[in-house]
């Protein structure tokens, strides 16, 4: 039976277990992969759940990423700020040609080659974190000790943050990412990070080095405001995402001991294991979000100009029409083509860095602690169900 358009759904929430998406998503993908959805502000837009629909919309320039055109499918305290154009430099919420200009400048800094060059440093950073964990004792929160600091220190490396300033940078950014932080704490930390970037930009102008920020500055095309915003963007995009992949990925492997054993038996599986974890875990579990610039028909539904569509990458990555046995974690299953990094013009700029970080950090963790296991019952691990990036809040482990 086809439901009438008047019966718009609301965004599906509530997982039956930490690794299974809300069940409603699978039903929608089957019955009506592009469906009407009511947003919290009462406006009616769309939700897309199938792999072909999500991928097609991400690739279609008739769908915009401009911040002022978007809507958010879940209650969102900063909604009012969303309704104006993105600040200078915040190119993920822009369309061409504004997006193109920034993206080009950054793409030059994010080549596969440059990311591979960072590999030895990532190795050293992970080694230091593992040493600290081992020294500190037999039960530790993997999120605080491993998953969060590694990407943070890698961003420091990439941006060229001096060693003497890294503790301060990590402290301030940890407040931004701590779910228990108060609004006042977060405001203060924002101001600290902004001041930090301003000082760093000044330093790099005076003494350019071989790092991303210096590269952008010597290009001479960007204002200090743009550079500061880009710094924030890289921090937001590169820290919480990889951190949650490391935390949730470890949880997933510990809960799927056959997969962990397979990886240990054949370390060459790591590249595909990372892709499969990206697909299976789909930590971007709410969006991305786009707005139609003109009337567009997708999968037999007419999305009108101005209407907002939420693209459920998490549902698309479990589409049985695209992936074999998609609800099973199988690190030998070819997972390339997943949409976790998006698709189209906005596909993740830092994806190769994220891959290098995960390919380095997971094997090192499991090598160092052959007997790594949860320190609390699995059902007591608190999940980030309502956060824009899914993951574990903390992951107490022992070895």
């Amino acid at each position: 039976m086809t439901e009438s358009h008047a019966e718009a759904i609301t965004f599906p929430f509530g997982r039956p277990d930490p690794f299974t998406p809300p069940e409603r998503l699978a039903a929608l993908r089957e019955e009506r992969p592009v469906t009407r959805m009511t947003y919290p502000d009462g406006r009616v837009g769309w939700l897309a759940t199938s792999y072909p629909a999500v991928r097609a919309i991400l690739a279609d320039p008739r769908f915009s990423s401009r911040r002022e055109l978007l809507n958010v499918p879940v209650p969102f305290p900063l909604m009012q700020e969303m309704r104006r154009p993105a600040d200078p430099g915040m190119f993920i919420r822009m369309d061409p040609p504004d997006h193109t200009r920034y993206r080009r400048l950054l793409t030059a800094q994010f080549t596969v080659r440059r990311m591979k060059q960072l590999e030895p440093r990532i190795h050293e950073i992970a080694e230091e974190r593992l040493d600290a964990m081992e020294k500190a004792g037999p039960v530790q929160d993997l999120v605080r000790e491993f998953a969060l600091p590694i990407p943070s220190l890698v961003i420091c490396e990439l941006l060229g943050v001096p060693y003497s300033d890294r503790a301060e940078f990590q402290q301030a950014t940890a407040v931004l990412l701590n779910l228990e932080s108060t609004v006042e704490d977060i405001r203060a930390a924002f101001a600290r990070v902004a001041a930090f970037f301003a000082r760093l930009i000044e330093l790099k102008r005076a003494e350019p080095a071989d790092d991303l920020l210096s590269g952008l500055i010597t290009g001479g095309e960007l204002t200090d405001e743009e550079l500061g915003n880009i710094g924030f963007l890289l921090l937001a995009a590169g820290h919480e995402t990889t951190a949650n992949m490391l935390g949730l990925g470890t949880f997933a492997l510990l809960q799927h001991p056959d997969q962990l054993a397979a990886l240990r038996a054949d370390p060459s599986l790591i590249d595909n294991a990372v892709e499969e974890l990206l697909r299976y875990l789909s930590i971007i579990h709410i969006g991305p979000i786009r707005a139609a610039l003109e009337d567009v028909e997708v999968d037999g539904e007419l999305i009108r100009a101005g209407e907002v569509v939420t693209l459920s990458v998490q549902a698309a990555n479990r589409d049985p029409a695209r992936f074999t046995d998609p609800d099973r974690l199988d690190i030998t299953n070819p997972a390339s083509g997943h949409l976790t990094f998006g698709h189209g013009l906005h596909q993740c700029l830092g994806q190769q860095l994220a891959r290098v970080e995960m390919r380095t950090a997971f094997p090192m963790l499991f090598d160092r602690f052959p007997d790594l296991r949860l320190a609390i019952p699995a059902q007591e691990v608190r999940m980030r169900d309502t956060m824009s990036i899914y993951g574990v809040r903390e992951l107490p482990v022992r070895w």
Partner: protein
Amino acid sequence: MVENALKVTTDTARCIGAGMCVLTAPKVFDQSEDDGTVVLLDESPPPESHADVRRAERLCPSGAISVREDPGTA
């Protein structure tokens, strides 16, 4: 049966520098040092690269790679 030769073309104006092609078919694609966009190393790749080149075409997020069969040179 001899497989037809492939003719690869790239469009640097569309390229967003995601780097998927370099990872998938490193003998055929590279990234420019200047702006990170695609550099085509081999527009007529050998048969052993064909599967990778076709995969790179499918994975390219911006549709900057086209692969077509070149029957004339089979």
